[in-house]
């Protein structure tokens, strides 16, 4: 590999993982509702809190992929 080619990394499908959290939270009316509740907490709140954990998880496969390639 010469330097020119390493400049533009080829897009690998695993990077789609990083878009999932944005997709999950982009359409606000989807989660702007009360039911179903979780432990008494309305959906609006627990849904967004759940995405905190899911977002962290979404980065793991990409991290492992990049580690595997020695980036």
């Amino acid at each position, binding site marked *: 590999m010469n330097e020119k080619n*390493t400049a*533009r990394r080829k897009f690998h499908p695993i990077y789609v993982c990083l878009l999932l*959290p944005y997709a999950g939270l982009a359409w*606000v009316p989807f989660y702007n509702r*009360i039911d179903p509740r979780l432990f008494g907490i309305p959906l*609006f709140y627990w849904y*967004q*809190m759940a995405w905190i954990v899911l*977002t*962290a998880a979404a980065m793991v496969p990409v991290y492992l992929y990049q580690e595997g390639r020695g980036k």
Partner: protein
Amino acid sequence: MTTHPAALVVFISLFVLAGCIGMFGARWRSGDLSQLHEWGLGGRRFGTAITWFLLGGDLYTAYTFIAVPALMFGSGATGFFAVPYVTLMFPLLFIAFPRLWSVAHAHGYVTAADFVRGRFGHRGLALAVAVTGIVAVMPYIALQLMGMQVVIAALGIRTDWMVPGIGTIHNVPLIAAFIVLAGYTYTSGLRGTALIAVAKDLLVYITVLTAIIVIPAKLGGYHKVFASVPPAQLLLAPAPPGSLGAGFAYATLIIGSLLALFLYPHSVTGLLSSSSRQVIRRNAMILPAYSLALAMIALLGYMAVAAGVKAMPEYAAGFERFGNNFAVPALFLHMLPAWFAGLAFAAIAIGALVPASVMAIACGNLFTRNIYKDFINPNCAPRTEARVAKLIAFAAKLGALFFVLELRTSYAIQLQLLGGIWICQTLPSVLLALYVRLDPRALLVGWAAGIGTGTWMVAQLGFKSSIYSLRVFGLTVPSYAAVTALALNLALSYALTPLFRALSNAPQFDETVAKDYL
């Protein structure tokens, strides 16, 4: 206001301990503190754990911990936007920040404006980015001091002291806290801050975990807590016909705020201090732990509603002075033992030291590198560079203290509102420039247009809100002014780039090459 002796003793001991830890930081993994990158970036040596603590204290500021529940307390669901935005910033950080780290490492950049100068060779654009950063972050420092002021007041410490021969001095506790902050920042730089961040985080997590278990239990469970919130505030208002409604405004608030947080000088300083790209990527995965803490703290706002602290006469003075920002301190005093409230307040006050110090250091770095060295004294020695940065960091904090003590605090809040909009306008020159090099003159025009329209929109709203409604083909589009201004900024930057390139055939300056970013 009543004094709480147990709370006071715990608070003062913890605060003094934190100050000592900060001073000790100068010796910790000591480097040559007369070098700017040693003082102002901790020698770029922080590993995964220390970076986690430092960024945790830096991105999730003490003021956030006061203001977010206050917003929930006063306005309901809208205030919760802070949670998705501090979540969605991380995938972007994961992808883009390692590139900034690499190019900064390859060329010795300390600030985002350093990168802009190297990438574009345009001193004017670098100056614009540096000045935007300094102006945007200054009111943010003031808000950290304000956060301290709230908890100091909640403790009921006497603020005015008679000194024989001088007269009465006002706000003594805040000035004392300021001296601790300025002292350790000057001597230890980012190292001291990182150590304090570790101590502060332990307190924050103890406080949060206790509060979210004990308080709802006393109030009768989460169901009861949410039931006490006015139903109209529990969700975002549904969109009226012909408008995209509050949901759209909420989404733009998320996007604009996450981009702003990413571009703020204190984020850049915090991230560049890490020792490798890997540290940044790992931190992107583990920093959301603080987002969980923030979500729980946000819900404290509703617990304060459920507890009914606003109607209690003993907290009336606090609410009158600090508005809804007093909600959480009042909740802690009402629901938890006094000594524990002292611990929680110490967490907030010590928590304020971390971002305030990183912000001041970022100001120092920006001024020294991109104003002093570029425009005033180009041949200054590294030793001078570090000294100037230390002095400017001190001046920035002094300015913030003056702001809090002498001017109305509402000015600081309004300026911080504008600061978020302004800092977003550096996106095409900093974040986008990691991938695409547009023409620097086009970027400068876009930046000016973005700052101008953003400021104009907020002025139209009387500096009270940043949600400006546009009318597009008969449809009302309420959106965060930062995002609207940024759209215009990007459109201009892209549209004018071919034009400026056609006007002059001069070769494009760019000291970075593609492999610097990897």
